[in-house]
């Protein structure tokens, strides 16, 4: 059994070299874990701060000002506070499941950061099945949500958890179909490979390099909507609709456990944005066909000096934040959907559209 896993691990193993791979095995592991954790605990805070500020400005407000310079430490203050809060476990709750649920929801988010490439060589792992891995892991967090909803022994939590389950299953389908379409076009499941494929993809019959967002604009739209729904972001926040279900599956959670759920949500925003950047928006390419400074590799994407690496990371993070901005924008602009509207949209609109998209792209791939 162990041998089999190891063997598979070897076959999955890296296609291209990660900068975080050192001669010493332990050192590499430590560096990679630190990379994933650092990403997971810092970037979501930046995203959360941006949400605060953008939402405030769109609502003609100022947002956090007092905590830290320009309120930038607002989420840090939140975190420090959550550590100190009393940990309440309802008497009727299933204690162990109740306690484990936030962890089950949180850990997959951390694991996905292992495969997300931020720049040339700036990733922990380049799995051959990277896309598959990311999608598979991301659907585990629904388990945590269902656990939390069930174990709270609260009717609002239970309904919220079930709603979340229904919503995530419904939107997983169009999400995966849209992602598969990209994999078909790129002919690889490796996330780094997909970025590379985008840098070499030419519009058929011409010499113009474009990202996958242009041939697959429909797929991008489907992925974006499905990602928002996956994250229960407004306007798809039926699982935590506070006018109906107090706070959904989080109703009974306090303190650090609640903070873990919250971090999962913000981390999810970053993960989904990062996946969209990698799948559709050319990864760390500044513009289609423009090589990074100091990069000699294929398409100006690899073998970069430190300047190119930094620029690549900056570009990826910038694109991620731009997508987070759009998510916040939609949150501010639109009211919440009704539960039946949500399901109708998933099954009647998005799934057929995604299948059609897949068919068209597959045929086009064979023809051209």
């Amino acid at each position, binding site marked *: 059994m162990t041998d089999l896993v190891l063997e598979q691990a070897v076959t999955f193993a890296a296609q291209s070299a990660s900068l975080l791979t050192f001669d010493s095995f332990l050192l590499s592991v430590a560096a990679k874990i630190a990379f994933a954790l650092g990403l997971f605990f810092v970037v979501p805070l930046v995203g959360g701060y941006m949400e*605060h500020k953008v939402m*405030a400005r769109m*609502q*003609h*407000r*100022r*947002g*956090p*000002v*007092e*905590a830290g310079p320009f*309120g930038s*430490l*607002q989420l*840090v*203050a*939140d*975190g*420090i*506070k*959550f*550590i*100190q*809060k*009393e*940990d*309440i476990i*309802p*008497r*009727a709750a299933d204690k162990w499941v109740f306690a484990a649920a936030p962890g089950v929801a949180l850990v997959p988010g951390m694991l996905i950061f292992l495969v997300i490439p931020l720049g040339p060589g700036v990733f922990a792992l380049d799995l051959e099945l990277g896309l598959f891995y990311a999608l598979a892991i991301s659907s585990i967090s629904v388990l945590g949500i269902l656990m939390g909803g069930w174990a*709270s*022994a*609260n*009717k*609002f*939590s239970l309904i919220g958890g079930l709603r979340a389950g229904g919503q995530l299953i419904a939107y997983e389908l169009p999400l995966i179909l849209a992602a598969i379409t990209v994999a078909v076009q790129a002919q690889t499941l490796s996330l780094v490979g997909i970025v590379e494929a985008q840098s070499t993809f030419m519009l058929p019959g011409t010499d113009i390099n474009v990202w996958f967002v242009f041939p697959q604009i429909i797929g991008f739209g489907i992925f974006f909507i499905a990602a928002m729904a996956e994250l229960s972001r407004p306007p798809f926040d039926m699982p*935590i609709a*506070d006018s109906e279900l*107090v*706070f959904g599956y*989080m*109703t*009974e*959670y*306090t*303190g650090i456990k*609640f903070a873990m759920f919250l971090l999962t949500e913000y981390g999810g925003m970053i993960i989904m944005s990062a996946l969209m950047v990698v799948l559709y928006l050319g990864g760390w390419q500044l513009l289609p066909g423009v090589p990074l400074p100091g990069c000699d590799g294929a398409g100006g994407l690899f073998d970069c000096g430190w300047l190119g690496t930094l620029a690549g990371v900056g570009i990826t993070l910038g694109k991620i934040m731009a997508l987070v901005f759009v998510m916040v924008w939609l949150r501010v602009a639109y009211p919440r959907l009704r539960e039946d509207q949500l399901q109708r949209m998933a099954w009647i609109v998005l799934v057929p559209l995604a299948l059609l998209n897949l068919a068209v792209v597959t045929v086009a791939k064979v023809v051209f």
Partner: protein
Amino acid sequence: MGLMDQVELPQPVKYVFNWGRKYSLWCFNFGLACCAIEFIAASTSRHDFIRHGVIPFAHGPRQADLLVVSGTLTDKMAPSVKRLYEEMPEPKYVISFGSCANCGGPYWDSYSVTKGVDQIIPVDVYVPGCPPRPEALLDGIIALQDRIQGESLKDRIAGRRLDPITLGADAPLAIEGATGGASGGPT
């Protein structure tokens, strides 16, 4: 919280922890009358108390740190406020907003009004006014933040009044019926 309410933390840690609590007051508005409108006004773009870290995103009492009781508290409603307060996790803070919540205000001799929310739950800051301006709430919040920055969590928990203030000579306020659980989840 466990250890935190029994051990006095070293000064730098205490400072940081107090700072965190000071600027992260997830706020639950118990709106009972006209004062609630002023509270809402304080959250709108003109006054915007999110600037001070008072975040009105607390969907339920479990996530709230600050309870703002704004309006006339009737005896019928008192058990709900008491219960809601008990559902909040420590450390929790209460602002009594407006004359009615302070001590009954215009209904000082009414048969049905609780003469002040501090008869059933401990109150940290009293904001006077009928109703107070939104800025008065902001002033109260700043006063509360001052208090949080200087406080010791250990002393706070130790000094927590466990029994409700009794009205008159004998019977405590009738709140026994509250814990039976008429709606919502178990406590």
